[in-house]
């Protein structure tokens, strides 16, 4: 953990810094600029201070969307992370089987998001879709457009289908990086499978697992295209998540000020969650390392 101090390392960061500054800081400043002004026309703008922020914070619809979003993101993590780890452990390590599994599992990641929505839209329809028709035959009344719970579950299932491979691939890459010597040592010690998982595989996967958890959290928090295509946020507001709410405000009603204020709040919420998660996982990781050293 004690890396040598070298301020010249900044030169290595510089290209990234310039790239991201160009594509993030400049646009973000524009958003900040909008959030404190009432833009009546390009020539007439009034400084309104924190008014937009206050009105956005009191918005009941926003609270509903936020609550919906939180439940969804937590459900996504609860399903996808264990399933992804399980898949990574189950995937064959060598040979053509391993290649075939990798390619098959990665497929769903490469489908453009609006196509993902379209696929499930068809797949779930009771008249022409495989899943919808099968459920119908089993005597389950299924409709993702009429029933709020089913709509929510369908969006969740779609997300699990779409994104579990990301977790699995990252964990798989992490697992492959464990030298055989570790397993040999464990075998000599007579360690159980559970112990191997807990004390060798899990700590070695910590880095990739952190990437997986954070990525899935952020991305599920920003989900837009897939539910938009599948359910359009309905029935009612059952599947209206934060991004959809934001786009409705910014593009639908063209309320630039409130939309910008909401963007910033949205950004800060994600930032807060990720900061907490990031630090928590770093601590857990360090504690694990100390545990091994003892």
């Amino acid at each position, binding site marked *: 953990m004690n890396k040598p101090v070298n301020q010249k390392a900044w030169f*290595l960061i510089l290209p990234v810094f310039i790239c991201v500054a160009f594509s993030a800081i400049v646009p973000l400043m524009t958003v900040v600029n909008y959030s404190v002004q009432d833009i009546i026309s390009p020539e007439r703008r009034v400084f309104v201070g924190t008014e937009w922020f206050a009105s956005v914070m009191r918005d009941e619809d926003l609270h509903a969307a936020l609550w919906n979003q939180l439940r969804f993101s937590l459900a996504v993590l609860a399903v996808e992370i264990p399933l992804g780890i399980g898949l990574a*452990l189950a995937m064959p390590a060598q040979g053509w089987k391993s290649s075939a599994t*990798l390619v098959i599992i990665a*497929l769903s990641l*490469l489908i453009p*998001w609006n*196509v993902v929505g379209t696929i499930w839209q*068809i797949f779930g329809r009771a008249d022409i879709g495989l899943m919808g028709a099968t459920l119908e035959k089993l005597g389950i009344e299924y409709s993702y457009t009429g029933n709020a719970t089913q709509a929510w579950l369908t969006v969740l299932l779609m997300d699990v289908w779409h994104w579990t491979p990301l977790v699995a691939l990252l964990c798989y890459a992490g697992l492959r990086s464990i030298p055989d010597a570790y397993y040999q040592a464990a075998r000599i010690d007579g360690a159980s*499978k559970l112990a191997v998982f807990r004390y060798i595989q899990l700590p070695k996967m910590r880095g990739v697992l952190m990437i997986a958890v954070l990525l899935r959290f952020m991305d599920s928090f920003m989900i837009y295209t897939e539910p938009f295509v599948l359910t359009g946020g309905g029935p009612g507001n059952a599947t209206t998540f934060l991004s959809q709410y934001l786009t409705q405000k910014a593009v639908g009603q063209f309320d630039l000020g409130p939309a910008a204020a909401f963007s910033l709040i949205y950004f800060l919420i994600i930032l807060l969650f990720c900061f907490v998660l990031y630090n928590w996982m770093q601590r857990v990781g360090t504690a694990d390392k100390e545990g091994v050293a003892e």
Partner: protein
Amino acid sequence: MNDGKFQKRSVLLLLYIAFALLPIYWMVNMSFKTNEEILSSFSLFPQHFTWANYKTIFTDESWYSGYINSLIYVAINTVISITVALPAAYAFSRYSFLGDKHVFFWLLTNRMTPPAVFLLPFFQLYSTMGMMDTHIAVALAHLLFNVPLAVWILEGFMSGIPREIDETAYIDGYTFPRFFLTVFLPLIKAGVGVAAFFCFMFSWVELLLARTLTSVNAKPIVATMTRTVSASGMDWAVLAAAGTLTIVPGAIVIWFVRHYIAKGFAMGRV
């Protein structure tokens, strides 16, 4: 007992593969049907097998140019992302310097910002600079989420390489660029492969920014597809065919990357 456990795992894997493939199969199945057949009857296989949907895509320029445009900006984006991310990831994994942790976290925050937030500012920025409807504009916009991701993944892989390798190389008289290109880079091939794959993927599937920043000359395939949905009713069959084709480039890329992932790190055997 070991066998029992192994079997249980295989069952999980097979079940998941079935779950992963069924919706895709359904789309491929539909791409060989006519619109009438899709909407009128329910069948596991196309009853009236037709290539007409694919023919539509390969003969209509507004369709196939979409694929070319997408591939161009995705390629530009992946190359830039990996090139700038490599030295940065090395700096983060090897040195501590003023504000390193903060900069690293700041990079990640860019990955966390919903693209919807940046829609309007990007539009104005690129309009002012006269870069609307160019491939480079989309490629640059996608740097927003791909550069942080690439730095993050590469940093993880690089931290797995023992620092002794760097030190030995410097003692042997390697300069930094020579060491980086001839010694270090081959060691993290797997990481570069994985990072390139994810950059490719996220750029390939992104819709909102790509659609907003282009109109004709650089219109990506994902935007072409949404237009077809809204314009001519629901042309399910052509849409399914187009969707099937969007999977192909990605499948080819993962086929190449698979070696890097499967071989694992060279460090285990050094």
